[in-house]
């Protein structure tokens, strides 16, 4: 009744873990952490609310940083070798002038811009951990961290989009 056409290879599974699981978790987590940071103001929160939210922001920031590192490490040390091997995706794209830019620009940018996401996210997590409740009274620092998180999101988003498009053109199998 059923055939094996929906089975995923080991490589396809890891590509999904890297892009869909880690990548999506980071991108979705951003919206919650950004809005939490932006609204973390002493002017609109009670002291109990500040204490409660400080803990959630700290945990959320570190979880996001960890996810970003996992995504980058899994991409660099697991998926990328398969991508670059003889007969792999990179060779296929470079051999076709109509598609070579996906490698010479797309993957080249993706594999570099992605590294800024965990670095920026970790810096944000360190600062949130350090200031905790005091961040509610430090408007300038709070906004800066929110924008730094947004920058991490943009970097991850560019990497994710390029990865998704390259996979559509020539997936890792």
């Amino acid at each position, binding site marked *: 009744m059923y055939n094996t056409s929906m089975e995923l290879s080991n490589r396809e599974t890891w590509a999904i873990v890297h892009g869909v699981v880690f990548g999506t978790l980071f991108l979705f987590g951003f919206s919650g952490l950004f809005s939490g940071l932006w609204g973390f103001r002493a002017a609109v929160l009670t002291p109990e609310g500040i204490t409660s939210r400080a803990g959630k922001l700290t945990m959320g920031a570190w979880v996001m940083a960890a996810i970003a590192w996992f995504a*980058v490490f899994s991409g660099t040390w697991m998926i990328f070798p398969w991508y670059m091997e003889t007969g792999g995706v990179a060779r296929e794209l470079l051999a076709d002038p109509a598609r070579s830019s996906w490698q010479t620009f797309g993957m080249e940018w993706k594999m570099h811009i992605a590294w800024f996401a965990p670095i920026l996210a970790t810096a944000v997590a360190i600062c949130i951990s350090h200031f905790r409740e005091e961040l509610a009274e430090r408007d300038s620092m709070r906004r800066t961290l929110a924008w730094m998180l947004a920058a991490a999101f943009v970097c991850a988003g560019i990497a994710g989009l390029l990865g998704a498009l390259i996979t559509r053109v020539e997936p890792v199998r």
Partner: protein
Amino acid sequence: MKKPFAVAAAALLAAGVSSVVFGVLTALTAASQSVADALTFMPKVGPLSGQGLSAAIVFLGSWKLLALALRGKELSERRVLVATWVMVGVGVVLTFPPVYQSF
């Protein structure tokens, strides 16, 4: 009493420093095969293995060093933030393919 800004400054500046280092290593890799070979910590990954690991190590190391160096110092929050954004910007620009591929 307010928490010292130095700890946060160290983390932010470390992010900037590691961004610049990553960008410079990317450009150097494109410009020099010997640099590319030296940064190839794992052959199957190529120079990216060295670029990425170096950036991560520089981030952690510079954070710790800056935290020690800046402890107790009066710092301008604005200057630290501007320096951080400039350094991150330099790193991002240097890792844009048309830029580093021109080296």
